[in-house]
């Protein structure tokens, strides 16, 4: 090791000392580990994409872009298309985001803006975050045995009285888009609520003081000052919640109904990409596996786009503050 550049600068009697060899070593090792860890993540993602892409390549070559725009999934005749699944994935996730995003944001406002004593707010926050700890399959069962029966009378009424509106054009037989979206909304609620809370917490105290100093009411301050200030972080939370909804598998496989149709009706069964993969993969033959890999690539691409956008928004939001 080179002579220690700091050694000469230190007084003999000083209690401070130059970095020892051990300090240099631990610093170097930590740095190497950090680089290796970061590199491994990138390599892992690249490897997964490469591996799935490699297995999907024959299907991509055979079915081309038509795979994304056709509607048949017929293993017997080797005809594959995933448009209904893409539609179902985006539709159910958007619905979930509408519902979950709305409630998540309000939970965040409720817990950060002094409506509750701070200690109680922490308890509530923990409870909301506990929602994220419930296994997906439990959500699915809950959806089947609680949400669907509870939803049925409302859905029947909507269908009977407002059946001319495309959204209510079919009756709810059981599993379908609406029960799936409702459960999905609850599943993304902790993500949206937690990140929105962080964003609202990051609103500088000076801004709050200034707002109240101007004589605003609490709601004026929240709606016109704090929310716009935290808007980028909140938007980021929505995007992350949307990304989570896109990839959710088990609960949706149990609740969406697995029907390969494109429909606007909230009560008819549909299908999603993740559900298609989970349901068909375990016993698929060689040809179907390639098609499923292609579908996985499509799902990966959709999720990637959403997450990149979300990450970008988050980064910008953090920089601004």
């Amino acid at each position, binding site marked *: 090791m080179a002579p220690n550049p700091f050694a000469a600068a230190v007084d003999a009697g000083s209690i401070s000392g130059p970095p020892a060899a051990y300090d240099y070593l631990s610093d170097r090792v930590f740095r190497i580990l950090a680089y290796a860890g970061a590199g491994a993540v990138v390599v892992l993602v690249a490897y997964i994409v490469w591996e799935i892409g490699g297995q999907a390549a024959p299907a991509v070559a055979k079915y081309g872009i038509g795979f994304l725009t056709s*509607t*048949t*999934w*017929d*293993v*017997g*005749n080797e*005809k594959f298309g995933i448009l*209904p699944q893409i539609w179902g994935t985006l539709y159910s996730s958007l619905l979930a985001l509408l519902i979950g995003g709305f409630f998540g944001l309000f939970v965040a406002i409720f817990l950060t803006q002094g409506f509750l004593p701070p200690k109680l707010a922490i308890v509530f926050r*923990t409870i909301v*975050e*506990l929602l*994220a*700890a419930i*296994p997906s399959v439990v959500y699915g069962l809950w959806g*089947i*045995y609680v949400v*669907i029966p509870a939803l*049925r009378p409302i859905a029947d009424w909507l269908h009977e009285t407002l059946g001319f509106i495309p959204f209510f054009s*079919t*009756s*709810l*037989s*059981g*599993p379908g888009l609406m029960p799936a979206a409702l459960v999905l909304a609850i599943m993304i609620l*902790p*993500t949206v*609520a*937690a*990140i929105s809370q*962080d*964003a609202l917490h990051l609103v500088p105290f000076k801004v709050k003081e200034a707002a109240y100093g101007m004589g605003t009411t609490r709601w004026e301050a929240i709606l016109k000052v704090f929310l716009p200030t935290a808007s980028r*972080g909140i938007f980021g939370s929505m995007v*992350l919640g949307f990304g989570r909804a896109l990839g959710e598998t088990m609960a949706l496989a149990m609740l969406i*109904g*697995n*029907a*390969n*149709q*494109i429909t606007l009706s909230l009560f*008819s*069964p549909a299908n999603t990409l993740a559900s298609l993969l989970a*349901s*068909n993969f*375990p*016993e698929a*033959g060689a040809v179907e596996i390639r098609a499923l890999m292609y579908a996985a690539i499509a799902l990966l691409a959709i999720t990637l786009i959403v997450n990149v956008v979300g*990450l970008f928004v*988050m980064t910008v939001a953090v920089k601004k503050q």
Partner: protein
Amino acid sequence: MNAGCKPGAPGRALAGLITVLGLAAALAAQGARAETVQGSTWLQGAGSTFAAPLYQAWIEAWQGRHKGSSLTYEAIGSGAGINRFLADTVDFAGSDAPIKDEQIARIGRGVVSVPATAGMIVLAYSLPGGIDDLKLPRDVYAAIFAGDITRWNDPRIEAANPGVKLPDLGIAVVTRMDASGTTFAFTSHLNAISALWRERGLGVGTSVDWPGSAMQVKGNEGVAQRIKISSGAIGYVEYGFAKRLNLPVAALENRAGKFVRPSAEAGTAALSETADTMDERLRISIADAPGAGAYPIVTYSWLLLYGHYDDEIKASTLRDFVGWGLTAGQSMQRDDLSGYIPLPANVVAKGQQALATIR
């Protein structure tokens, strides 16, 4: 990104804990199983969900008497069962679709297919208002599954059910998602009886391209469960699965124009007239059972065995087990197994002959 990690953290920790506990439990179970199996044979089968409850009952009863051997049967669907059989990852498979010649050709050590049971495919449904005596003419149920009749109060259904107040409700068709022998038998039947089905080119197979609005579910039990939790649903399952969940089943119009409800007599009547038409591999497809009292949709279910096993004990155990199933196993007295039809005597004899060739 710190903020992004927070919400998932307790969830992830808990999930990790659950995984670890589950893994430990699985390892413990593995260890326990390995001990009991030591010094004996362990035979693995997979396939048909249609016949699975019967096979499970056979295995239970058989293992009670033969302590040394251990059999397992995994209900994964006929198509998947045949795939595993072809890939040589099981010792035997169950299928309600007869094995194809090109599949037999792919297996070097020979295939013995033994009809092990037969059963009725029923149309189970769930309708509000406790309707449980629905009658469906043949053109009507074909049209329902082809996607042509979409509402329960369709005039064609109402015409066949005078006096029944049918609701103004969409029909939710439930079909199989996985490759299934039940689907094969059912589509063979629809293809035989319905010009509409043939025109649509929906065809016959272990999986077909169902109309888009059909909900697709895995396994007989999955279909039955989906019908149970839905309102206005109809689907095709083996009779016992409908019974187990107390689902009402439709009386179907048979070839003679009579409406027949599934029953042991109606099933036996359907089998008796066709038993002599099996080919040398004991395959047969009863697309449309003849006879005035016969239930129209019946199918055999086969056990697929290899012609040769390297392990002599495996071969003899399978010979004993399947032989026992063909005789004593035919009349298991259990209410939820009453949907299975005991094989006619001449079919049992043919099965035993085929079984004896296994080495």
